[in-house]
């Protein structure tokens, strides 16, 4: 049996004879002690700090405006709002335990710490969907909506692929399955969320339910950074374990992400078809553009031709001003005193 199919052992908490700086992200020798000043990939400390600086919680967002606006939404908007909310909640419910499960097999303590932060953030996302629901509809209806999400055939089909991979790693935690889990996690966080994001940001474009979309914006920022981390994790995994870095596995990535793209299009056909302001054709192009970005994050080539441009640039994280952010800056930057300049000042912006 090749090493990539050999189970990873659940690691001991402390291995005092091993160095603090791990010799590998999996199957490495590591004492289990974490000194952030002595880690194998120093950029992980910056990433950890960046993630922490995102800290937010649902209760910070006052839902009053959205509560008042809720009744002015059309029936279709209300229905899709609730479907999307519970569908996103069910995706995030998978991420919290999976990220903490992976921690048991990752030998580098700095990576473990980042998985812990990601798991915490997923828990906050999960709570925020509940918080939105509790502001808008009674418990009985919430439960109906969750059941609906559980039974929805399209949602089920999407989630099954992810679940299968997560479950496979649970049953038999091999390097190969950890790699596959990473790719599926990128699909979940980096593709499957976007029809839902499009729906909420589209409402926001019409000045509707802005508190909910503020929350979505926080979630998107976190998720984007998670997808970056997982992409880096996968790249390091393949680099440190050349036996995983095969043509077959590269093909696995192309196939798995392409499949997620098809499923996201299918979901969008259902969920966004009656939504004014969203052209389905355009959204399909958007999903391909999005997937091309995921490929590039993984160090691969674009897969979909002629998808370099973002056809829906309004699907993006709100600016701080819009989110009314008051948090202090983590990196202790000095205040910058220069006026904003642009190409009208005599230079070119490419």
């Amino acid at each position: 049996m090749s090493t990539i199919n050999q189970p990873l052992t659940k690691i001991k908490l402390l291995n005092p004879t091993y160095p603090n700086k791990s010799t590998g992200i999996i199957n490495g020798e590591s004492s289990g002690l974490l000194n952030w000043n002595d880690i194998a990939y120093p950029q992980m400390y910056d990433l950890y700090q960046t993630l922490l600086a995102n800290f937010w919680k649902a209760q910070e967002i006052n839902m009053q405006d959205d509560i008042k606006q809720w009744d002015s939404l059309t029936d279709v908007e209300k229905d899709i709002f609730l479907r999307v909310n519970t569908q996103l909640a069910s995706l995030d419910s998978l991420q919290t335990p999976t990220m903490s499960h992976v921690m048991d097999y990752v030998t580098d303590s700095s990576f473990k710490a980042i998985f812990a932060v990601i798991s915490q953030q997923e828990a906050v996302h999960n709570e925020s969907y509940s918080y939105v629901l509790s502001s808008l509809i009674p418990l009985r209806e919430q439960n109906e909506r969750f059941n609906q999400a559980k039974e929805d055939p399209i949602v089920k089909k999407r989630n099954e692929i992810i679940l299968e991979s997560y479950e496979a790693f649970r049953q038999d935690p091999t390097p190969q399955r950890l790699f596959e889990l990473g790719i599926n996690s990128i699909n979940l966080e980096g593709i499957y969320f976007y029809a839902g994001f499009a729906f909420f940001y589209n409402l926001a474009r019409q000045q509707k339910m802005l508190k909910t979309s503020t929350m979505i914006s926080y979630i998107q920022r976190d998720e984007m950074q998670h997808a970056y981390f997982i992409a880096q994790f996968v790249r390091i995994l393949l680099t440190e374990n050349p036996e995983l870095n095969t043509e077959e596995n590269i093909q696995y990535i192309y196939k798995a992400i392409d499949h997620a793209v098809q499923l996201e299009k299918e979901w969008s056909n259902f969920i966004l078809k009656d939504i004014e302001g969203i052209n389905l054709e355009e959204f399909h192009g958007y999903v391909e553009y999005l997937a091309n970005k995921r490929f590039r994050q993984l160090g691969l080539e674009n897969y979909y031709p002629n998808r370099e441009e973002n056809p829906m640039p309004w699907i993006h994280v709100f600016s701080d001003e819009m989110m009314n952010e008051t948090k202090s800056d983590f990196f202790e930057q000095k205040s910058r005193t220069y006026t904003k300049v642009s190409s009208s000042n005599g230079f070119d912006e490419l």
Partner: protein
Amino acid sequence: MKAAIIYTSVTGNTTFIAETIQENMEKRNVATDLIPVDEFHPERLHEYDIIAVGMYTWANGEIPIEMEEVYDAFETEDLKHTVTGVFGSGDSFFAHYCGAVDLFRDMLYVHTNLAVTLKIELMPQEPDLVKCEKFCDRLLQETLVIQ
């Protein structure tokens, strides 16, 4: 004529852009030093007619901490006549797309002869390579204007 490219990169995208720009400059017969930020010496800035600065953006659109020394050097050394350009890689989904490039731009505009800025999403794609060529043309054009 001599040029320098000072850059920082975590995942390699900005490195790729920096190398592409270097190749393009050399193609245009300009000797160009490629300087990762940890090999940067402020006093050497005066050796160059053209300086391009490149960086990624993380953390709410701020300038990466390791670029602070470069930033300070441009503020304190007298480089009024140096032709500069700033480039970077980012992700347009974030609120401040290539925010570090913008912050550096505003400072370079005041302290140097800023000719051009360039933002690229992640790893460059076909159309971005054309922009890298234009970036170099624009830098050279500006030095000719001065001469």
